């Protein structure tokens, strides 16, 4: 390769990966739509703030509803950052490079919003600070708050560190950049000039982060599963809840990454960087984690189903053949078993089929959380009597649904903003991997 080729290729890469960094009409319309939707949802939340949690369908027996299911889902989806970056990254899978930032973006967005979701479930949100002031180290909620905060910060740093070099490039090279944005990149790039000492700091910091990320990520979802598993209720009283949740989280997260990959590739014209190979490989990842999740599902249902202790029997009866059966089988078959079968074939791991599979998996993942959280509470150990009908059967209200939609909009906003103003594919890393060498900063 000659110097000229290198220069050309570098310029091409830069242009390919940064051409979308400009404020265009499509972006404004999309953001306007998201903001408007968010405002409607926030209005719903303001009603809840004023009149109390009673605006939701939750009552004394089914006391955790859609908000909690949502929370578990968001924590789950955020876990993928750890799987892609840390586990697969530390092993040294080079094909992952273009996907790492997408995974990290998803991790940051979902982790940040998970913290907000849980506030929407609080009866006294204005007392949130009490968790830090009066926190009891014996309560899984304190652990959860701690690990989610930690995981969010770790993910944010892991998103930011590889971006430093990219921002230095953008600040210098991207012509389409609005003039008021340029200084922001300059500040964020920390005067990065590709000095060996600078690169050494960054790579060491990334290495530490990747190692810390593994226990932190395992903790967030394990602790979240403990919110349920530390109780003695049928359906929650399980020793495999930690790994069950973690493996389920990888399923949801992988599906989310595939969906994001598809739309970024299409909207930002990244076909050369996110190739069919990447979709094929991510399809294999999704199939693998789904198989692991299926294994835990079998454990989770077969073992209590074999013994049929009274409360477990009622719980399983409701899930398998009762009120929740339709949803349960739709989720288990449509969101787990069928996708696994399809993904065994190469042709279903092409971008479009795998997108459709991923969407099905992600929707099923949300309803799976719903099935974990709600049915258990509908049949406690002692009968529910002398209360109104809406205490016995849970059905979400409109306001509750709107409040539950808000986090999704928020996640879309965060992902849109990050992907819009930063290269979706790590620019500096890709250039280095293509053997272009160090960027010349003038």
């Amino acid at each position, binding site marked *: 390769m000659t110097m000229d080729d290198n220069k050309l290729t570098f310029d091409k890469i830069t242009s390919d990966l940064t051409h979308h960094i400009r404020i265009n009409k499509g972006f404004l319309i999309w953001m306007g739509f998201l903001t408007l939707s968010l405002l409607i949802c926030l209005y719903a939340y303001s009603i809840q703030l004023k*009149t*109390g*949690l*009673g605006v939701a369908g*939750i*009552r*004394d*027996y089914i*006391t*955790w509803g859609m908000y909690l299911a949502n929370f578990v889902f968001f924590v789950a989806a955020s876990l993928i950052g750890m799987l892609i970056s840390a586990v697969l990254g530390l092993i040294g899978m080079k094909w992952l490079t273009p996907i790492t930032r997408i995974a990290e973006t998803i991790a940051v967005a979902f982790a940040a919003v998970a913290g907000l979701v849980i506030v929407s*479930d*609080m*009866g*006294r*949100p204005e*007392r*949130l600070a*009490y*968790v830090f*002031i*009066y*926190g*009891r180290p*014996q*309560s*899984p*909620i*304190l652990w959860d*708050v701690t690990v989610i905060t930690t995981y969010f910060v770790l993910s944010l740093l892991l998103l930011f560190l590889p971006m430093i070099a990219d921002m230095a490039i953008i600040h210098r090279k991207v012509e389409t950049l609005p003039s008021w944005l340029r200084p922001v990149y300059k500040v964020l790039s920390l005067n990065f000039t590709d000095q060996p000492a600078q690169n050494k700091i960054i790579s060491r910091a990334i290495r530490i982060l990747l190692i810390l990320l593994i226990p932190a990520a395992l903790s967030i979802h394990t602790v979240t599963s403990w*919110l*349920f598993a*530390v*109780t*003695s*209720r049928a359906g929650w009283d399980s020793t495999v809840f930690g790994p069950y949740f973690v493996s389920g989280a990888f399923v949801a997260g992988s599906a989310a990454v595939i969906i994001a990959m598809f739309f970024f590739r299409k909207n930002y014209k990244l076909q050369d960087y996110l190739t069919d190979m990447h979709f094929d490989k991510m399809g294999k990842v999704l199939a693998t984690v789904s198989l692991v999740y299926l294994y835990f599902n079998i454990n989770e249902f077969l073992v209590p189903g074999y013994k049929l202790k009274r409360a477990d029997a009622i719980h399983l009866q409701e899930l398998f053949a009762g009120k929740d059966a339709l949803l349960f089988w739709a989720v288990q078959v449509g969101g787990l078993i069928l996708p696994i079968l399809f993904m065994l074939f190469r042709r279903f791991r092409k971008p479009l089929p795998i997108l459709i599979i991923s969407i099905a998996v992600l929707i099923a993942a949300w309803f799976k959380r719903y099935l974990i959280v709600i049915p258990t*509470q509908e049949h*406690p*150990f*002692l*009968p*529910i*009597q*002398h*209360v*109104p*009908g*809406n*205490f016995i059967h849970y059905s979400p209200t409109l306001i509750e649904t709107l409040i539950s939609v808000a986090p999704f909009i928020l996640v879309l906003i965060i992902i849109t903003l990050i992907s819009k103003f930063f290269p979706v594919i790590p620019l500096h890393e890709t250039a280095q991997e293509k053997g272009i060498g160090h960027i010349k900063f003038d």
Partner: protein
Amino acid sequence: MEDNHTPHSPNESDNQKGSSRRDFLKNIGLAGVGVATGAAALYSGHIFEAKKEVSGDQKVLLTQDGKLVRVDSLEIKALDKDDEEIRETMCRGGLPGRRWVMVTDLSKCRNARKCINACQGAHQLRPEQYHMNTLQMQDTPGTAPYNMPKNCQHCDNPPCVAVCPVDATYKRPDGIVLIENDRCIGCRFCMAACPYSARIFNWIEPKDAALHQDQEYNAELNVPQKLGTVSKCLFSADRLREGKLPYCVEACPNGVYYFGDENEDAVTNGTTKETVRLSKLLRDNGGYQLMPELGTKPRVYYLPPKNRLFPFEEATDATPEKV
């Protein structure tokens, strides 16, 4: 002859030196409530202050003995740190040397629901909010149905307290599991953790909230109830301090409830006021606890529904309206 009520613990009326410390603590405790409610400030104000300023702005306060009083707002003094400590000691400290225990005789319950009414009245609860609820139970299809009053079991290994993130619900040395609704963040983890479904939540504005809004919070009565916080049976901690039986125990017309101090090995029937030995009552009647296999170590015992005084009837009372 019929003087069954002793306003203070008879044990402490012993002219023994040993009990003076206890009396002292108790007095401190009682003073603490007074200070906490502001009523004591009013009292000393009346007695010691010759000149009196009046603002005309009257506040309604709850005194330590559960009476509502009207106080001029100028006479209410904010708590300083020491008072807070006293209040903490007195409320969180419980009644020294006691281990409260309740015995519910299922053979006598006929679902009169008097306990429930008394309880809901005392704690300002709406009809669908139960600190105490009588359930129609049938353990297996082949066994006879029976009525079972169910309240908080005040476990010695309370799963609800374990999971509270902010120390809002806590176990007292005298066995009572209390809630401080000034502290509760409304996460409802305790409700999820309780296997007895004993806890309730203020989903909407509590009953007559406007009426009680000026009332000083009494943690031992959990009144006034607060929107967005958890509530539950408190073993009527406020009544125990006065030497009285809990509201539900006293209200039962059928002699279902016994209440007392395990350390004294004695429980008193709320209807007949007869005091009997706890250990003998449990031994003679096959006393048991609810779901002891969960390891919660409840402080409520049940006597089995054998030789029932009343035939079982399906409950016919109206279901509370939807909220």
